[in-house]
């Protein structure tokens, strides 16, 4: 009995997904969702900042300055995760030839680049008091830097191609090549670093992290998630309007 139901539901699901992926449907849908994501971002942000500034204890070794990790760690997570999501949408766009997927990838790239830069920036702010230096050629720092370069390459490639369909596809191939390369780059940098120098500086945190610190970090990570989704949706709406400017429904939507 199950067998007879499954194909039906799956086709209904895919039909519904493809229906939502059409720009005239997605544009108002995203518009309705955006305030919710902003509200959640604010909620998690306030809770996360409260926990990280007032609840989490002062670190025994690192003092107050460690609190930058409540921004730094979520930003690093997001920078890597957004690249994967971007590559996923780019791949979907290549395979199914759906217009919205390419727009989604294009909308995610600036946020991902922002996160990568933010992660590098806060990392060096943390490094100065802890290690006494702004920058160390540590494996994680170096691979984060290269990730930022990959984002910039993706944005630059899309920006320099006028035809949006071609820009989407070219960007998709670059994003997918980048995804294959990210683990290679990460491990090569890691081995390079361990071959070069002893562990003069280790990024590994103390094994036991206070429970409240973890909570603060998780809340901030959720805040960054919601922010990224909200901003990406806003950007994708702008891209939809730009690309579909000639269509009838956009004229009505803008009125």
């Amino acid at each position: 009995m199950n067998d007879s139901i499954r194909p039906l539901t799956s086709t209904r699901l895919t039909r519904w997904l493809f229906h939502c992926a059409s720009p005239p449907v997605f544009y108002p849908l995203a518009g309705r969702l955006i305030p919710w994501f902003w509200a959640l971002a604010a909620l998690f942000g306030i809770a996360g900042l409260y926990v990280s500034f007032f609840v989490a204890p002062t670190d025994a070794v690192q003092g107050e300055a460690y609190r930058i990790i409540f921004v730094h760690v979520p930003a690093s997570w997001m920078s890597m995760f957004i690249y994967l999501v971007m590559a996923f949408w780019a791949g979907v766009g290549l395979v199914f030839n759906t217009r919205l997927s390419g727009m989604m990838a294009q909308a995610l790239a600036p946020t991902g680049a922002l996160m990568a830069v933010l992660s590098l920036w806060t990392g060096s702010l943390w490094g100065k008091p802890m290690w006494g230096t702004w920058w160390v050629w540590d494996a994680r720092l170096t691979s984060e830097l290269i990730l930022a370069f990959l984002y910039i390459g993706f944005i630059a490639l899309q920006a320099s191609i006028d035809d949006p369909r071609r820009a989407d596809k070219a960007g998709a191939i670059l994003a997918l090549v980048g995804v294959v390369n990210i683990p290679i780059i990460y491990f090569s940098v890691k081995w390079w670093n361990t071959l070069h120098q002893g562990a003069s500086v280790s990024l590994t945190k103390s094994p036991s992290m206070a429970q409240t610190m973890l909570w603060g970090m998780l809340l901030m990570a959720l805040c960054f998630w919601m922010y990224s989704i909200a901003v990406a949706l806003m950007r994708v709406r702008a891209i939809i309007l730009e690309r579909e400017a000639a269509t009838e429904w956009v004229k009505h939507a803008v009125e």
Partner: protein
Amino acid sequence: MNAVWAMARRDLLLALRRKSEVLTALFFFVIVCSLFPLGIGPEPALLRKIAPGVLWVAALLATLLGLPRMFAADHQDGTLEQMALSPSPLGLLVAGKILAHWLVSGLPLVLLAPVLGIQFDLAPDALGVLVLALLLGTPLLSLIGAIGAALTLGVRGGGVLLALLVLPLYVPALIFGAGAVEAHIAGLAFAGHFSLLGAMLAVALFFAPWATTAALRIALES
């Protein structure tokens, strides 16, 4: 397989007819390498230490110079469209072009490297490791570069953009290529570096012509 050789032969012939382009990239390699001692100072100990990295970075940049030409001329005069329509798979033809690019702009670097290495006071056995590392690494550079060249085909500001796209992807080759020589100088085993370079080359050999073909088809569509 005939298609690969035919394509490689044709590109080599074209390169031989226009020698200046090839030689420019080679002299660029030589000049970049010679600039470093001038900028850093002539201490032999320091030069020995930086030699592998400098030679490898110069090799990356010199390979980059030839990349925009890989498909540009064929794209302009319509040959590329004929290639896409031809009965032999475009992927094989692309592999032939990559092979030709390596023979023209990768292999000469490998052969020149020992001469420049002597300038940096490298020991003979270190020179041998350097040549082997470049021999494994430069095909990788051509393969990855071909993807970038195809993506930036006919795009505004193609040359600079190509560097921006391709150089981050060259990082692993640089690390293990220069790392092998450095490990050897430090008296460590370098076989691991060579294995990793070889593994990356094998992966790139399989995927790069395929990705390049996909990128070329996108460029031809519009």
